[in-house]
């Protein structure tokens, strides 16, 4: 848990602070969406379609960022869209973290054929781009928030399993584990009490870096029409609507894209800081 010292250290890093500010802002948007939004994000108003942002000619004072092709308010939709991005981002990371940690622990601790099977499966998952894997599952399931979380989670566990496995391999040989073993600790106790706490910091670091990937993936899938469906609002879905009107109404696609970019940037900054703090050995390229 972050104590006061950790937060003070975070505030010393400029990019870390910026990341924190962005993330806090996005979380506040998600939490207080009903109060921040000026309109119902799903209400259609044909007479108000494709209104430009308020500072342009023809803009209306209550539609700050303009409206989309169905007359829905873009600002309100962006505020509500933060919910989907965060829920899917964090949820999917929890799913893949759990799968990856369990498989990594098993594979590193037991070795032999268990390791061989798990690592071969991991190789096969790497041979299919994760977005493709997610597409295949979404092709045969009903889309929805939970499906999306599980699907994205299922496709991103390999990096966890690999890192955890290699950590377990070296932890297994360490004296404190051997000592616990000779003192008669059972396998469950060894794994969960002695090994797991020592891989926690790696788990947290990979997770923080994976949130960025996950948010981008949700946006991509929703953009392709396979993620969140109306009336739920997703930034990726908004972009897909806006693409068709890019020639006449640039604002429809521009603002949700900015929202995604800022959020991911915040996650990257915070994640980088966390990595430098907790585990400098893991680099970005491993995730």
């Amino acid at each position, binding site marked *: 848990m972050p104590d006061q010292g950790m937060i003070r250290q975070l505030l010393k890093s400029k990019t870390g602070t910026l990341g924190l500010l962005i993330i806090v802002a996005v979380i506040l948007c998600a939490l207080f969406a009903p109060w921040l939004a000026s309109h119902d994000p799903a209400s259609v108003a044909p007479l108000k379609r494709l209104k430009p942002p308020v500072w342009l000619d023809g803009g209306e004072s209550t539609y700050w960022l303009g409206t989309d092709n169905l007359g829905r308010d873009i600002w309100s939709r962006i505020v509500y869209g933060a919910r989907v991005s965060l829920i899917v981002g964090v949820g999917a990371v929890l799913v893949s973290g759990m799968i990856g940690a369990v498989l990594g622990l098993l594979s590193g601790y037991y070795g032999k054929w268990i390791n061989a099977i798990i690592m*071969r499966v991991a*190789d*096969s998952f790497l041979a*299919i*781009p994760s977005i493709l894997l997610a597409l295949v599952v979404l092709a045969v399931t009903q889309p929805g928030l939970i499906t999306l979380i599980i699907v994205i989670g299922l496709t991103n566990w390999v990096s966890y399993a690999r890192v955890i496995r290699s950590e377990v391999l070296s932890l297994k040989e360490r004296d404190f584990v051997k000592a616990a073993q000779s003192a008669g600790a059972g396998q469950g106790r060894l794994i969960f009490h002695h090994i797991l706490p020592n891989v926690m910091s790696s788990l947290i670091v990979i997770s923080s870096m994976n949130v960025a990937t996950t948010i981008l993936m949700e946006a991509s899938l929703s953009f392709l*029409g396979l993620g969140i469906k109306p009336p739920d609002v997703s930034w990726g879905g908004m972009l897909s609507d806006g693409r068709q009107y890019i020639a006449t109404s*640039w604002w429809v696609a521009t603002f949700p*894209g900015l929202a995604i970019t*800022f959020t*991911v940037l915040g996650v990257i900054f915070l994640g980088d800081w966390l990595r430098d703090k907790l585990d400098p050995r893991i680099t970005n390229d491993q995730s």
Partner: protein
Amino acid sequence: MKGYIIKSLLQVIPVLLLVSLIVFILVRVTGDPVALMLPETATAEDRAVLTEALGLDQPLYKQYITFLGSALQGDFGTSFRYGESALPLVLERLPASFELAVAAMIFAIIMAIPLGILSAVKRNTFTDLLISGISVIGKAMPNFWMGIMLILFFSVMLGALPVSGRGGIEHLLLPAFTLGIGIGAQMTRLVRSSMLEILNQDYILTAKSKGLRPFIIIMKHAFRNGLIPVVTIVGLQFTSLIGGTLITETVFAWPGLGQLLVTAVNTHDMAIVQASVFVIALIVIIGNLLTDISYRLLDPRIRYS
């Protein structure tokens, strides 16, 4: 070397088998193909007939063997949207995707190598900061949004480049830039860190004290050794490059494999989906193998164990 290549080729087989198993499980277990293929008004009898015709009443392991048997012969079934065999439809789209992927990779390399070197040599200066900043933003931007913004600027506002489709070089520029920028950003970071490591080594100091020109030191002594991790990342990026074509092709209506697959997924055309996944997995595996081999050719210190 020859033994190593043969050994690696043999290792491809279990991976491909597992890919087939994953696809099979995903398609058959997570969804109901019968419900997807029939209209909602279908009777229980219709369902039974189709279930039997598709062999879905057989036990799962038998279904898998049948599926694998036909997959080995290149038979992934008939696309009900095109009414043709799925594999040729998929292969037909490959050249367009390949063209886009190669162009994107060339763009990424052209961008990453000079920027990476520059930012390593000018470490901790404003230039370095600027380049790092740009590459972080490049990583954070969803590439489909990037594509839409490029269309807005170059096609809508300037009217300089076509909005979509495949044709001459002017059609290729925007999609290749869109697809390449994310990879270029990651490569820039890698070239930078790899160059930094090398610039600190003794032989660079020796070269400097011999009075060689900085340009010669950087290009001849440092860059050639800094290239090794870059080759690896080019190979590793191959997978995300292929994944990226799915989206970039959709944004620019580029008639490649990605566009075919996305449409197939949206219309539940499972034959096309399965054939595409196999072809893509095979390409990725071969790509990784080639990376591994070129890596070893570049650095003789790596042994073929």
